[in-house]
């Protein structure tokens, strides 16, 4: 996913002279081509994310379209006040790209996990949050984000994520993309964990349940139209995300349902628990620690959908 982002940034840099890439001393060799294409528009801002974010605001206030790029927790939580004030309060068009979001870097330990970023950034006025599910969506999301008049957090995985979309879908900020059609249960998945959502859907289909899967890439603003449809039309809505159950997609959908009820559908939320992981391991291992496996999730849905 990050390779697609780097490639697309390079492409956009040659089309749009307003694009500036700020890196927090990350992505060794990743941006070599960008640096060749637009050497004057690449700045390694060092390991100084607060400054980088402020610099991006200054550039945006003078007409540029800056992108800040580093590992998700450092792009977000590390410099959260700069995001709140410099980007959101000023409402400037800056795209924060957080790479290795969620549990992508599980083996690096909780310092590098990013399971609170959506919840924290979601509270800031003017902020838009997009979590593309695959490289295809990431490319489209980047273009949409750079055309958006305000700050955007683009929350991406690492590398090697499978392509979910066989062809480029119609991508609009705030409009979820249907990946599988179905009636009984609707799974809303945000980000790269969609592969798990698809496995869950397959298990449930084998049990005779009709499952719809949505790539719910934009967590803010929510796709209210879709939520209206499924809360009326489905028996059960399940959210899946590589993010804390507090404040993420599941939290946002629960808030929406509380505010817009009554709803026919009940809601189940799957995400990371309210605890740091004490042991390191692969991304699959870390997900399993939080119960994010196809077996666990499909069983819970079966039980609830009864």
């Amino acid at each position: 996913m990050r390779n697609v982002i780097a490639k697309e940034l390079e492409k956009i840099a040659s089309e749009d002279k307003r694009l500036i890439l700020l890196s927090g001393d990350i992505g060794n060799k990743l941006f070599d081509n960008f640096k060749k294409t637009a050497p004057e528009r690449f700045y390694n801002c060092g390991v100084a994310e607060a400054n980088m974010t402020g610099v991006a605001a200054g550039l945006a206030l003078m007409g540029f379209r800056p992108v800040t790029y580093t590992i998700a927790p450092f792009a977000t939580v590390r410099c959260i006040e700069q995001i709140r004030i410099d980007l959101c309060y000023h409402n400037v068009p800056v795209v924060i790209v957080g790479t290795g979001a969620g549990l992508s870097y599980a083996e690096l330990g909780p310092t590098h996990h990013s399971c609170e970023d959506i919840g924290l950034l979601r509270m800031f006025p003017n902020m838009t949050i997009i979590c593309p599910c695959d490289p295809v969506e990431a490319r489209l999301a980047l273009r949409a984000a750079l055309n958006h008049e305000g700050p955007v957090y683009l929350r991406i995985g690492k590398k090697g994520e499978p392509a979910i979309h066989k062809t480029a879908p119609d991508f609009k900020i705030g409009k979820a993309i249907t990946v599988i059609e179905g009636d009984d249960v609707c799974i809303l998945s945000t980000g790269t964990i969609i592969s798990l959502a698809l496995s869950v859907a397959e298990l449930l289909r084998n049990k005779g349940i009709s499952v719809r899967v949505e790539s719910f890439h934009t967590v803010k603003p929510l796709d209210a139209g879709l939520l209206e449809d499924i809360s009326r039309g489905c028996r059960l809505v399940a959210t899946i995300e590589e993010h804390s159950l507090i404040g993420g997609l599941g939290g946002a959908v629960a808030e929406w349902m509380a505010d817009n009820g009554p709803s026919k559908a009940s809601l189940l939320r799957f995400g990371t628990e309210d605890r740091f992981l004490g042991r390191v391991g692969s991304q699959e291992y870390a997900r399993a620690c939080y119960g994010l496996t196809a077996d666990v999730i499909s069983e819970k849905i079966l039980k609830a959908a009864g």
Partner: protein
Amino acid sequence: MNVKELERVAEEIRGRIIETSCKAGVPHLGSCLSCVDILTALYWEVLDIDPQNLSRPERDRFILSKGHAAPALFQVLAMKGFFPKAMMDDYGEDGSLFGEHPPACGIPGVEAATGSLGHGLPIGIGMALASRLHGYKNGIFVLLSDGECNEGSVWEAAMMAPANKLERLMAIIDFNKWQATGRSEEIMALSPLKEKWSSFGWSVYEVDGHDMGSLITVLKKLPDGSGKPVAVIAHTIKGKGVSFMEDDNNWHYRIPCLSEVETAKKELGLI
């Protein structure tokens, strides 16, 4: 304007700040009064900003990073004609744009919203990079407080600007020797301030921040030919201009009563 006339302007600004503080209940008088001469020198003699033509892209930019001195900035902007003085009639009232810190929009001449410290210099770097990319020859001026230099983001920025040879960026430090609750030299190891900035790669000048002539000379040095960003350490007195406020840190938060306003205005030669 000559130095005498500028000093007169500065006294008038001081008077208005003190009056407004009393009327609107706005604090940070000490911090405002210490930077009045710097702001006067900048806005009357140094900055290339036409209040009637703010959309001219290649103009200079000024960021008040020590946002709590907004009451001083607002008076300066009003006197320079960035907006009609009457716009400040509701200062401090419910629904006013004018309060304790510069807001993100609505007040002409306010370049960036500040108030949380340590945000202005990074934004200034972004503006300086942008100006260079556009090919402008303008200056970006950022005013910080000495207490603000506690913030790590100031030093992140202090390292980035010289690495990018931002010779048209100036950081002015209003060195009034106090921060909110004590001496800035004691709360953190601020000394040696000049050596800190020069060791970070800045071209540093020290100046008496209340000597109008010297201030204008130093603030006009941008760019100074060194190829480095410029830091100006302006030695100032917190509460400058009013005997009972000078170097008394109680005036970080205190609001003057009517009789104190009158005494202050007498001392400033305004009545």
